[in-house]
């Protein structure tokens, strides 16, 4: 009689090799290639010329100073919101929290355009209000301070989420014990809550710092006109002025970014060590302090902040998009939807960019889902020793700034692929592969949390019913993780659709994405068209966030990133 092979665990034999191959192609191979080129060119002495270039050190300095001040701004904004919304009896918390998350999900190039539309002598909004500074006065955002401020706005939510998670994880009895010991609300806050939540704040600051270092959209729009180059924009400009040493230079530069990021991530991992996010599910109810007469003041402050960092820039963006041309005052007489008509009906470039971005994002979101459902299943069910290593490797490409990954894929695919001899460089496929690598972790996380929540006996019952792996996957596992898979698709789609950093380096004629198009339109002076396109992007972002928000109740905890 036949005796089927060893099948004690529930995974088919091909699953482990499959997962290893995926991780190898999406994480190890590109990053390994980058590291190899960087180290090789450093050894050949090619880096010495680059490293002796004062422009490089100026750029490192600008990167660090903008990121540092950006981090401070993010900590002030995000920390303040987290404390007020988590610990005090503010009304409308859910709405405030949701609105506070929006700036993070809006692509940085759009944020930058919106803020430009709000300030400076050419602001359509300020002109309409008669508040615009005289012509010829400088645009105040084209500066280190301007870049840092927008970094802060863009990344405040990261600090908010991290600190909030820390606050929600606080053991409630610690607060109650302090209260019973006779401490006043203020003393409890000062002596118990703040010290205990410091790791969350520090971790949030570290992530915000890493995110600032890797940001491309903001310094590209605000910095380049003022001659300020951060490391990502320096890579971009070196790549644009292509020369014989470009590959060596950009690999060293992205190596620098990677090192700075890894330092930041190590700080984060260190301060968070031993903190288990899974315990949050049960606590989640911190003792709420009463603000009394201060409540109105605090609420006013919160709404004013939301108005300044979100509503105003978006109003300015809409105003810019309705103005007939950059610098023309907006009034009932001049208002026009010409820019929208231009994008929607006339320009072939916009249609191509829409098609590219939508198809890339859909392909990434659904393609990745197939991969991540299998990988997630493996990570949760397997008892292999490599699970820890594999999940770490899956995280790295997303944790690193997109520009580093883009450079890695340029190096990997600059020459035709060995054996098959096809070159995907310059085609849309290289962007797709880079998206797969970059957003793998985004897609994986909801799926993994869904599998974690799944009672293993549901699958075991199906096995005893006689269902093989494929059958179980289709009949049992996929339907049960479907809500999380849906969230994963929306999240990846949302992020990929608005992405600029990766495609900025990888696009070529005919493969530009929405992000690239907005940047190029602004760069070529079509500010109102860029603004109109940005308005559409913002509407899309908000719509998808609302969908996720509505789904949130049916999803495992931690799937919707702005919900804690």
């Amino acid at each position: 009689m036949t005796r089927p092979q060893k099948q004690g665990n529930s995974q088919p034999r091909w699953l482990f090799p499959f997962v290893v191959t995926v991780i190898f192609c999406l994480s190890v191979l590109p990053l390994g290639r980058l590291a190899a080129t960087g180290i090789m060119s450093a050894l050949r002495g090619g880096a010495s010329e680059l490293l002796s270039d004062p422009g490089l050190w100026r750029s490192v300095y600008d990167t660090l100073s903008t990121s540092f001040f950006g981090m401070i701004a993010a900590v002030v904004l995000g920390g303040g919101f987290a404390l007020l919304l988590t610990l005090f009896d503010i009304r409308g918390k859910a709405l405030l929290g949701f609105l506070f998350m929006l700036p993070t999900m809006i692509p940085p190039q759009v944020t930058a355009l919106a803020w430009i539309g709000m300030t400076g002598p050419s602001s359509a909004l300020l002109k309409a209000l008669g508040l615009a500074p005289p012509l010829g006065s400088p645009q105040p955002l084209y500066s280190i301070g301007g870049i840092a401020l927008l970094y802060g706005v863009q990344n405040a939510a990261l600090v908010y989420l991290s600190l909030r998670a820390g606050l929600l994880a606080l053991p409630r009895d610690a607060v109650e014990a302090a209260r019973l010991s006779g401490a006043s609300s203020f003393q409890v806050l000062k002596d118990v809550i703040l010290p205990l939540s410091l790791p969350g704040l520090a971790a949030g600051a570290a992530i915000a710092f890493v995110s600032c270092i890797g940001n491309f959209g903001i310094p590209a729009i605000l910095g380049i006109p003022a001659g300020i180059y951060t490391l990502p924009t320096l890579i971009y400009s070196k790549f644009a002025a292509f020369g014989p040493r470009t590959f060596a230079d950009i690999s060293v530069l992205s190596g620098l970014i990677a090192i700075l990021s890894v330092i930041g991530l190590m700080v984060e991992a260190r301060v968070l060590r031993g903190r288990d996010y899974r315990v949050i599910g049960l606590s989640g109810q911190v003792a709420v302090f009463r603000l009394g007469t201060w409540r109105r003041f605090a609420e006013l402050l919160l709404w004013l902040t939301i108005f300044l960092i979100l509503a105003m820039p978006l109003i300015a963006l809409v105003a810019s998009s309705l103005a007939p041309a950059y610098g023309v005052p907006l009034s009932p007489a001049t208002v026009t939807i010409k820019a929208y008509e231009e994008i929607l009906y006339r320009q072939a470039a916009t249609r191509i960019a829409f098609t590219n971005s939508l198809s890339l994002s859909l392909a990434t979101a659904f393609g990745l889902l197939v991969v991540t459902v299998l990988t997630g299943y493996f990570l949760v069910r397997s008892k292999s020793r490599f699970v820890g290593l594999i999940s770490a490797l899956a995280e790295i490409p997303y944790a690193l700034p997109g520009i580093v990954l883009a450079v890695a894929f340029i190096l990997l695919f600059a020459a035709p692929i060995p054996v098959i001899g096809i070159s995907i460089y310059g085609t849309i496929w290289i962007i797709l592969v880079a998206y797969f690598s970059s957003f793998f972790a985004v897609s994986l996380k909801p799926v993994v949390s869904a599998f974690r929540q799944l009672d293993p006996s549901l699958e075991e019952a199906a096995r005893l019913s006689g269902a093989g792996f494929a059958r179980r996957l289709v009949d049992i596992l996929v339907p049960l993780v479907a809500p999380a898979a849906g969230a994963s698709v929306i999240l990846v789609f949302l992020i990929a659709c608005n992405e600029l950093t990766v495609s900025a380096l990888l696009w070529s004629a005919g493969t530009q994405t929405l992000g690239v198009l907005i940047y190029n339109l602004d760069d070529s002076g079509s500010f109102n068209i860029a603004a109109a396109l940005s308005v559409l992007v913002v509407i899309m972002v908000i719509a998808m966030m609302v969908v996720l928000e509505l789904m949130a109740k049916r999803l495992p905890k931690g799937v919707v990133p702005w919900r804690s």
Partner: protein
Amino acid sequence: MAKLILNRLSKTFDTGGRAAVNDVSLTVREGGFLALLGPSGCGKTTVLRMIAGFEQPSDGSILLGERVLADAAEMVSPEHRNMAMVFQSYALWPHMSVTENVGYPLKVRGVSGEKRARKVREALAAVRLDAYADRRPADLSGGQRQRVALARCLVTEPDVVLLDEPLANLDRHLRQEMEETFREFHARSGATMIYVTHDQSEAMALATDVAVMSEGRLLQVATPEEIYARPEGRLVGGLVGQGATLSLPSPFGDRRLFDWSAMQEILAGPAQEPPADILVRPQDVEIAAEGQAATVLSVLFEGERYALRLALPDGQALRAFSRQPVKVGDRLSIVIRAAWRL
């Protein structure tokens, strides 16, 4: 169908530590109903999971008749074992209706159309759930979910049905009803059943055979009557019934069952023999006008009677029942009608 044989079965987990299951040999006759009884962590669930195929033995083998299901080198996957299981958490698929849940094993086996519908109807009728066919598991009570899980086992006529503490999540009233359902199910299907539990009364009431496990080892396998009347060793004696174990020297050599006259000798005897473990059940302890002196340690009113804990003069504790109220500290005379050397 055939008998299920566990042959020197052992399981050590990779995480190290002592073996979860250690050298367990056991034969379940065809159509038998075996209860695996033991305290939590004794390895009984691991044995069950090895029989189901979710764990591979580290040593030994599992056979169903002539067919080797698993040994340390190879195993038949659970999909191909033709077994069914009722899980502690019921493991009903929340996205399927009751009918779909029960019909799923048939669907996987390629049974479709009217034949499947009829079998599902029969299975649901057997557990009296015909009226709930279109509900979702979420809309059912605990006992109803349990019965759906049972119907799912019934539907494919499996060789072996495994039950993993199926009553642990139910309240006392439902338990009795479900015990009845399980007995009916066993009688009707004739399947070999293995039932894991830590509750001795459940095991006694349901099974045709009881296997007692502790710390990964099999201590005794016998019919419920046999295991109650003739338990082997202190652990089994302690697990089955509410008896107290006395440590007294016995001058009777290999004799195991003692009546009152023998017990008098044992209690009186300054003996040379090493002390033996002697199990005394409370119903065999009578309060009499004359007999062995004992002091009341505690009294618990149970409604129909008082449950007493008594101390013998040498300090060893005994259990007894009394119809009359007694007080802590009272001195009584007792007669031990029967006792069993473990």
